């Protein structure tokens, strides 16, 4: 697609030239490291106790007690940091006027959006890849089932893809990066916890909100279950918000 490669490369450059990426990346890795350490320390305490009680030892499982909580914690940290990475994408272009330059080059708007979207996703995948070091470390000292690890990371990437698409959309709505980040965080949190009203509403609405909940669709991945319905959910979620961003940019052009 015309212009995609140029926009993708420029976005990658913008990320690595910006202090925001290094600050956000450092906070992400410190927090994920801290959560991993607490889970591992707890696991080591339980395994020590289990060593004295063989019956309890059967329930001690590295995947259940360290890997799964790590993914749960990572998803929460991503919820906090993705809006900080996406806030710049279109809001900065609009504020600086570079969007005029970009959209008067012979590039398709979709190529611009996909270039920005995939560059941000790749940056998050890089950050997630660093957290894999934690799992390699514990695999040296215990038995890790790699299936749920891989499915967990697939879930993380798919969920991050959804987060980025929503962040891209909120970044298109305003010239102010802070506003874009707050809108993005609010909307993501809403999609995260929307399932909570499922238990108190009727069965019809309950089913709908449960389907919309990001948390509900992440759960199977962290347990090692790859369900096509969950994959499609995140895929459609991303597609929907990229489409919405495209339409929003068009509507803005018409209004001038």
């Amino acid at each position, binding site marked *: 697609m*015309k*212009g995609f*490669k*140029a*926009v993708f*490369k*420029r976005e990658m*450059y*913008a990320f690595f*030239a*910006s202090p925001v990426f290094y600050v956000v990346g450092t906070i992400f890795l410190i927090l994920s490291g801290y959560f991993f350490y607490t889970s591992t320390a707890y696991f080591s305490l339980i395994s020590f106790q289990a060593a004295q009680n063989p019956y309890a030892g059967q329930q001690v499982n590295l995947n259940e007690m360290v890997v799964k909580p790590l993914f749960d914690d990572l998803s929460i940290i991503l919820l906090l940091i993705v809006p900080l990475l996406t806030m710049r994408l279109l809001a900065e272009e609009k504020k*600086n*006027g*570079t*969007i*005029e*330059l*970009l*959209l*008067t*080059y*012979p*590039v*398709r708007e979709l190529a611009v959006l996909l270039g920005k979207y995939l560059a941000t996703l790749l940056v998050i995948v890089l950050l997630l890849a660093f957290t894999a070091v934690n799992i390699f470390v514990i695999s040296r000292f215990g038995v890790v089932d790699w299936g749920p690890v891989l499915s967990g990371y697939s879930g993380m990437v798919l969920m991050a893809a959804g987060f980025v698409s929503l962040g891209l959309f909120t970044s298109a709505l305003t010239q102010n990066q802070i506003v874009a980040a707050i809108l993005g965080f609010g909307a993501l949190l809403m999609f995260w916890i929307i399932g909570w009203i499922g238990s108190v509403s009727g069965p019809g609405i309950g089913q709908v909100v449960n389907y919309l909940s990001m948390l509900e669709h992440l759960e199977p991945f962290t347990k090692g279950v790859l369900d096509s319905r969950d994959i499609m959910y995140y895929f459609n979620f991303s597609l929907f918000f990229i489409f919405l961003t495209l339409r929003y940019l068009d509507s803005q*052009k*018409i*209004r*001038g």
Partner: protein
Amino acid sequence: MIEVEQLTKYYGFLPAISDLSFSIGQGEVVGFLGPNGAGKTTTLKILTCFLPLTSGKARVNGWDVSRNSLKVREQLGYLPESVPLYTEMTVERFLSFAAQAKGMGTREIKPSIEKAIDDCGLQKVRGRIIGHLSKGFKQRLGLAQALLNNPPVLILDEPTIGLDPAQVVEIRALIRSLGQERTIILSSHILPEVSQTCQRVIIINRGRIVAIDTVSNLTAQIQTSRKVHLTIQGPGEEVLKALKLHPGVLKTEEKTGDGPGKYLVEMDKDQDIRADLARSIIGQGWGLLEMGSQELSLEEVFVQLVTEEPGDTV
């Protein structure tokens, strides 16, 4: 190269431009003038496909801006008014990005960047971060990115703003040389710049075209009388009286200053009495040191056209 027919653009219920029609041929440098809010930038944004039009037609190199937006953008080099640039990039990296975004082939990119850097005088700052550059260098970089793919049509919005006088002369010369083989629309508030670089001017006011012509034709149309300035060595009062009484002279004015007397004489524009006037002065035994026509400046033409426009056009 550029054809605009009854172009209209509304922002909500407010018309920004109404029924604009003009055409610009290949190798023509045309100045686009108008007061603030006249619709210049809107027109340029429609031509660059950044804004959609409400009605009418606009074609660039035969491609319709609404139907063949990508093709139109391939023909264009555009320098927006505020010169937006990615400030975290270096000059070379930014030009490389712009060349890639313009769809240039890998082999063409490097020579094209070198040429743009040379033409716009960016050698000294090629490795510098854009955010650290002065306004003048940013302006030149904006122009360099517009020239990258050697586009047949250049749309330049205020190209010399922020440049020092020497750079202004260089960039104007560059625009003139580029205009030999390209079509250029140059929007500017600096009227001498337009008269020096452009073959024709389009003056718009309140979203409508007020005039399209060469500067000399516009001046001739608007000028109601011919003004001649004279420097005469002779007795001041007598000279002034003789000038006033000379047949065909409408108005005479003496300019204050040291040295020989300077006079401004206004005569009917269809009746050239300059030769008679010269003979009469010399015949009196006075010294005619200087005689020259004083043309209306583009500023005067512009102000006259824009203020003559009736108020109910929008």
